[in-house]
């Protein structure tokens, strides 16, 4: 019984930690963006920020949290949205990066890049913490 309780508490803590994980949406310093516009960027409805072409990138390690917290869709729906966008409008879906380091590096170096990471970064614009 005690083992059961411990297991339950461990699982509860695990789920809680997953549930409260933060997602930081970041952008290259060339990008002026608001938190309210993030969703549109990641479904292809917002392609430009002023004169800068936006290049959203996904983060394999944080995608599930990002989709749940920011986009309010699951992976299948997100993929479906982009395949239709690509097929109908000729848009290129966000490239998938392996993790925070790769996203951070890409966003720092790429004009117009927008991504998301799991911890507070430096050297980039933090659009919003979700």
């Amino acid at each position, binding site marked *: 019984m005690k083992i059961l309780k411990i297991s339950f508490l461990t699982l509860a803590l695990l789920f809680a930690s997953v549930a409260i994980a933060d997602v930081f949406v970041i952008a290259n310093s060339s990008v002026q963006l608001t938190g309210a516009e993030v969703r549109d960027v990641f479904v292809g*409805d*917002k*392609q*430009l920020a002023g004169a*800068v*072409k936006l*290049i959203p990138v996904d983060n394999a390690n944080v995608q599930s949290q990002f989709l749940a917290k920011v986009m*309010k*869709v*699951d*992976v*299948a*729906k997100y*993929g*479906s949205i982009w*395949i*239709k966008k*690509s*097929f*109908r*409008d*000729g*848009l*290129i879906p966000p*490239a998938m990066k392996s993790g925070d380091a790769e996203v951070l590096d*890409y966003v720092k*170096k*790429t*004009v*117009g*890049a927008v991504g998301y990471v799991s911890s507070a970064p430096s050297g980039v614009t933090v659009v919003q913490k979700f």
Partner: protein
Amino acid sequence: MLPALSKSGSLASVVALLALLTSPAMAADTAESARIRDLEQKLEHSMKMIENLASKVQQLEQAKTTPVAVAAVASSQDARIDDLQKQVSDITSARSRASDDGLPIHGFTDVGAGRSTQDNAVYGKGAKGFAVGNFDLYLTPQFGDRVKALVELNFEIGTPDSLATPQASGVGVDLERLQLGYTFADSATGWLGRFHTPYGYWNNAFHHGAQIQTAIMRPRFLDFEDKGGILPAHTTGAWLAGTIPLVGNKLGYDVYAGNAPQIIGSTLDMKMAGDFSHSTSTGFNVSFIPGDMPDLKVGLHGLRGLVHDDATTRNVTRLNMFGGYGVYNNDLLEVLTEYYYFRNEDISGSTGKHGSSAWFAQAGYNLSGFTPYVRQEKTTLDQTDNYFAGQTSGRSYQRSVLGIRYDLNLKAAVKFEINHTKQNDLGIGVSADGYNESRVQYAVRF
């Protein structure tokens, strides 16, 4: 004591006194000279020391110039490294952006089998057996931030009434889309070329993408021009499209103009290269997505244009289509419905205006990868309207569809579908043909 001295004695006394007084002075002069010499020696020694020190200081200063030079070199190297890093960054950035210039090929393909009991004088016998579906490739090259293209090629198995492949079972290639675009803003992208005509929802959302549409078959009246459709699924012309934020909601629009189709050999021909008797078709599509229900999309659409046929006495009909559609699609439920109302006008003759309609409604529900779905479709097409009378596919029908789809993964699906069709308007005195069909399809995208 001096007043006590005599005159002679006084002189001697003075001399003595002077001698007495001067002797110490002379001694003092000698001492002073020695002191001066000593001081001169010390000064000379000090000067030597100063010279030595100056020499050492000079040496030290010379020694100090080397680290300064090293620091200068290091600083120069830092600048070069910074410059190299910037160049690498620029190259990386350029490469990452240049990925847009690459040509990742996407596409769809499907295979399957089917059985049809269709048998009537207009459409003949239905096909049976295994079949290769479409092999559809599309490219989305981008040339900078705003210039882009969309090119789609479709390889398909022909049917006897196919324009692309007049020979049955032949493989035909269609240049489905060739459109060059420019993004003016988020709210406006202009395209020129051949594109999927943006009426309703299905034609532009799915088209040849068998894997991304839930069902196997398109609604028949929305099928391709050479496969049973009654509308031009493609247009060659200009198209402006965009999405406009509207108080937390989204307003989408499409306006387009292009070569009006003609009816050639009882099938709509999109006139990709223009025509001597050119006429223009125009259309619009306006959609609305509520901000608090992003899974819902409702819209209105319209299309008009002068359509000529190739009859001996050439008929000219003004195509007037107007309608609406609604789509709801979340992770579980998908509902699609489209309605088309026609009010075509006979321009070359005197039969006046003709009213016709077509619609379908489809619903599917995702149960852990299995998606059962149903669809009902119906057309009521006026056979005295030259636009429909001139098309083989312009006969009224109604069809009920039942199917199930299973998603093997995000890119592959297996579907099974049955339908019952009642084919009307087969000719005066000819009764309707009711037939059944069953199909299985294995569809992938890449």
